[in-house]
Every structure is written in C-alpha cells, then in structure tokens.
C-alpha cells in the first residue's frame, strides 16, 4: 500500500508523521522523486533545512525539475532581499501566486514542514488555507492534485495532531522497525498507513520499508501478527448432542418419505377443499335432513303446547 501511495493513489492532503526516533524526510523525498518521475510539476516550500541539503541525494535530472521556494534563509525578510518566501506569504493568495510561476498542468505541493508553520501561524487560518488551496488554484487555472506535508508528531499537542488527521486524506506514521526485523531483512522502518477512500471506506495497514539511493522505495511485506490462540473458542465448539443418546432421533430416507405421506388432520381431498374455498363468498346455508322420529310442526316447533 505504501508503494501505491507514493505512486499517487491518494489525492488531497497527505500527511507524513515522524517522531524523534525515526525521521520522515526521506519518505517525503521519495514522494517528491516519484512525483517528478510521473511528470508532474512539484513545488517545494522548504522551511526547516537549506535548499542544498534538500536537493542532496536526488538524481540530477530530478533535482533540476524541482521548483523550490526558499523559506529557510530569510523567513521574516530581515535582510530586505526579495525572492525568498516569507512566512506571512503562506496564505491562499501567496501560495497560488508562487504556483503560477511554474508550468501549467497538474501540480504537487510539498511542505517541509507543516510543524514549522503551525508554530508560527494561527492554526485555524493555516488549516483553512490548506483546505482552500486546491479550490483557489483551480480558479487560477492550475490543478493541484495533492499536498504532501511533513509533520513532527512530538512537537504538537495530541488534539492538534488528531485535528490534522481528520483533515488529511492519507496519513503515514513512520517509526523504527523492531529490533528483530532490522537485522534479518534489511527493513529499516515501519509505516502505519490510514487512507480514506472516496466512497467513505477507511483502509488501515502496516508495512516495512526502506529507502534506497536516489529516493526509491523498497517495500517489504506486512508484519506478521503473533496473537496467542484464543482458549475460549475451543470450549464453545459445537457439541454433537445427538451422539450419546440411548434412543434414535435420526431419520433415514425411507422413514422421511413415509412421514411425508401421512395425511394431516385438516388435510382434505382436493375437491372438497376447492369447493369449500369457492363457496366462501356466498351466504351461509344450513343443510338439514330430518330424521325418521322428527315431527316438524310449524305452529308448535317446541312441542310443548297443550294442543
């Protein structure tokens, strides 16, 4: 799944969260390299490390195509020189202006890092800016396919991190692989991923990976789960209740057919049934056949008058 994410499966906001134990900038650069190789224009807004350090390690053709906005050298514009990216310039208008300097077409925005901006700008305005950049760029004629940002999870309170996760389409937590894995298979890092698909489905996965030179990704498989077997399941297995009886509860085939052939108490023959069913709409009729001893007298039906 990590390979698909790097290859561009997720649009919108993609968040890479790293910790003190394991840095995520190399995974961010992997996203950059894959994006450049796909032919998209990549705008990098760098704040934490100088430009040369960011460009180091890329292939020369990849590095040449990066459109770098330098927010590291002089973010508050103290030197008075123009050309760098000032921190106030990170608004919808400022970002779209910078994007328009690049070629038209699909663009990917890389932020290195979002933590730096979160510590210097008001948080709600920054989140609103991130959400509105694709829409404003579309109005200006560009198409921003994804925004990949790096977040240092240790620097922010938990609520802020959860809020950012709710805004993002895909989140990748980067951590060190456990000790055993590292020696065996040369997998250096463990990535836990969460992706919200368009239909509302949420996919969660974990994978080992390592980054090769030139910032290509090598993904290993998922970690195997070592859960203890569930003891409760064995005791509640289906008990065959008919196995230990002294009388026979089962039916053979001939017995079953014989049972079907037994006439049921209210099962009339077909003609009588149909005649009863059809005559149900009429009035009720009483059929009476007088016996031999019956003496019907219309004037004295109860036979008690002394006549």
């Amino acid at each position, binding site marked *: 799944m990590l390979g698909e994410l790097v290859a561009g499966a997720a649009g919108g906001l993609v968040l890479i969260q790293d910790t003190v134990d394991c840095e995520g900038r190399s995974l961010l650069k992997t996203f950059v390299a894959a994006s450049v190789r796909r032919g998209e224009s990549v705008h990098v807004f760098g704040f934490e490390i100088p430009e040369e350090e960011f460009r180091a390690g890329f292939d020369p053709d990849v590095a040449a195509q990066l459109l770098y906005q330098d927010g590291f050298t002089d973010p508050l514009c103290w030197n008075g020189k123009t050309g760098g990216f000032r921190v106030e310039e990170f608004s919808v208008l400022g970002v779209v202006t910078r994007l328009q300097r690049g070629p038209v077409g699909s663009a990917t925005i890389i932020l290195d890092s979002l933590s730096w901006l979160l510590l210097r700008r008001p*948080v709600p305005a920054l989140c*609103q800016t991130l959400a509105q950049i694709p829409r404003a760029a579309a109005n200006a004629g560009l198409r921003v396919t994804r925004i990949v940002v790096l977040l240092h999870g240790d620097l922010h309170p938990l609520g802020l991190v959860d809020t950012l996760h*709710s805004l993002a389409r895909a989140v990748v937590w980067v951590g060190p692989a456990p000790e055993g894995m590292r020696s065996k298979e040369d997998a250096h890092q463990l990535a836990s991923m969460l992706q919200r698909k368009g239909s*509302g489905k949420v996919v969660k996965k974990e994978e080992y990976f390592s980054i090769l030179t030139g910032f290509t990704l090598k993904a290993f498989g998922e970690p195997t789960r070592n859960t203890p077997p569930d003891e409760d399941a064995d005791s509640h297995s289906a008990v065959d209740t008919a196995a230990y009886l002294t009388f026979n509860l089962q039916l053979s085939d001939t017995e079953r057919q014989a049972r079907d052939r037994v006439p049921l108490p*209210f*099962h009339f023959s077909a003609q009588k049934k149909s005649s009863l*069913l059809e005559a149900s709409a009429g009035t009720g009729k009483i059929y009476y056949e007088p016996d031999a001893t019956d003496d019907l007298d219309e004037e004295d039906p109860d036979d008690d008058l002394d006549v």
Partner: protein
Amino acid sequence: MAALATGGATSSDGATSFQRKVPANSRLATIAGTRPSVRHGQLLLSSGLPSLDCVLGGGLAVGTLLLIGEDKYNIYSSLLFKYFLAEGIVCGHNLFVASAKEDPADILKELPAPILDDVHKKQLDEEESAVISKQESRESMKIAWRYQNLPKMEVSPAVSARFGHYYDLSKTLSPELLQSRKWHRFFLPEELSLQSEIKTCNMTCGYTRLLQSIQRIICQEGFDGSYPQKKQKNILRIGIQSLGSVLWGDDICCTDNPEYIHSLTTFLYVLRGLLRMSLSACIITVPSHLIQNKAIMERVTNLSDTVVGLESFIGSERETNPLYKDYHGLIHVHQIPQLNSLICDVSGTKDLAFRLKRKLFSIERLHLPPDLSDTVSRSSKQDLAESTKLLSSGCGAMATGKKHLDF
C-alpha cells in the same frame, strides 16, 4: 380481517376504507411531512431515519436542534446529515445547507434516493401476476390451505408511511426533484472572500456570518410568521456540517485553552433563539471526539435540544470483538428535550447499536450475552473497567480513560 386487508391493498394509498368524519371548518392546516406528537402536542418532523425517530420519541420537534457527535472518521454522521436533508427534499420542505469543507451543491448531489411506495407497489403487482400464472407448479399449502387464495403481502421496509421514508444509498436523488425544491446555501470560503473579517461579540467571524445568513433567510422567506397572508406554510430544515471544526475558524479542537472558548456556545444560544421563533429545525454535526476541553462539550450539550453521539467500530479494537460483529457502531443518546413537560421520554435501554445496510439504517437494542468465562469471579481491575465501559455506554465512558478509582 382478511377481507379488510384485501380491500385495503387495492386502494390507492394503502389506507383503510374508514374515513374520519371531520366538520369542514375545523380542519387544521397541516404542513406536509409533519405530524403532531401524541406525548406533548408539538409538531414533529421526521429526521430521515425511522429508527432514529423511534429512539427520539416519534421524531424531531419543530423549532428544536438536533446535535450529532461525529464518529471518528465522519462516515456515519455525514450519512445521518444526508438522510435529514433528503427527507426535507422528499417532503417538500425548504433547505439551508451550511458547510466549511464541501460545497453545499456537492452535498445535495449525493443525497440518497427514497424508496417510494408506488415503485414498490408496481413491483408487487408484477410479482402477483407472475405468481397466479404459475399457480399449478406452486407448492400448495398443506396445513394453512385456507389462506391459499389470498394475495401475498410482502413484509418489507417500504411500508407506506408519509412520515419517515427509507432511502436507498446506492442511488442518488433525481436532479429534477432537487431543482423543484427551494434551497439556500452557505459555503464559508465564499462568504469570507466576499467581505473583510469582522469579529463581533465573542464569536468568530464564520459563526457571525452564518447567523446573519440564517436570520436573513428566515425573515425573507417568512418562516417566522411575518407574512400571515401566505396560505401554505412550510418548514425550513437547516443543516450545518462539522460545526466547531478547525475549518470554521474555531480552535476548540486544537488546544486545551482556546482563545474563543465561548464562541461555539454563544452561536448555539443565538441559533436556538432563532429556531424557537420560526418554523424550522436544525441538524448540526460536531466533531466531539476532537474537542479537547470536556467542559465545552458539556455546555454544548446543555444548549442543544436533542444530542446523539455516534461511535463507529472501524479501526478500534471493538471491530474484532465477537459481541459486536453484526453491528457497525454504537449510538449514545445523551439528551432528549423536555418540551412543555417536566419529564422527557427517555427509553429504558441505554445500549443501542446501529447497523448500516444499503437500504436500511437500523438502530437496535444491543444484547450483551452473560459473561460465562472462567475469570468472571476474579476479574482484574483492567477487566472491570472494560466491562463497565461495555455495560454503561453513557458519556462517562468518553471522558475517562481506563484508569479506575482505587481505595
């Protein structure tokens, strides 16, 4: 009884042939899609989900606010939001949709289509004729042969009910139906770009704009009774998505000590005043799992009328728990309003779970089996906390962690 049933099925709308004799001049003007409540006499609206209407005591009263606490990935709460709006479209009410994340036109395009009775009835008729033609090959009933000639009545979820409809999530509402209804929109990025930022009376700019917009619509369209000569009254259904999230400009989700801690509560206070004086009802979804300060959520609950919290099992450890394998999540009813009465009808059961199928979102009572494992007499402290969380799934479980008071 059987004859009555057959007589009833052949009439046009499934009603019985009994007609209530009402003198002509005392006929009350009824608004489509509403019915009076039998408990407290208020006019009730359907929330879009018949099972939620049962839980809330018949429906949502006109002039009240339904607050939904979102689940972690906002899947089921957005579904409830869409059901509410779709019910408004089907009943012919006016809509007001406000959002800071998605364009309201996009939200309305994704509303589910209702399962209508006449469509289903046509299917029934086709089925019946197919059945009668194949009567010889059909197996006759052996014991209950008296009922053989009666037509087959399908017990299906699409029972004729003008109050509360069922929706099919795989289909969307037809655009013609959408265009025939009147709806209003509020999309925060558009509104903010139009005018400059203003902050009034403790509320963030987005909330102020939203309240002004709602008030303007209520006055202009006459929902507050300002046009008495208008014969046909209608209801305004207001839907606000993800209020309190960071995209509305509010920081209660980000920090423990937000700058405008009373912003959301002031908004709800003013909104409820607007709702009470007009023929409208409102649904708001709030990301309650992100709000850091628990006191804010308590105040928000107090200031709303009906509060329902959703908890989905996706991604949590409960997903693999065999007790919950049939269900997709839990519903917690935190508050039901007391309108014109001293008590509210709180149902006895507090364990409600929901399950989503394509045509039905059902809310059922959760039956927990008795704990027959060996360790039931010697449960450790951890298990005790877990079991109390399971059995009393009220809002106390949200606030506390697994720690457990020890004397």
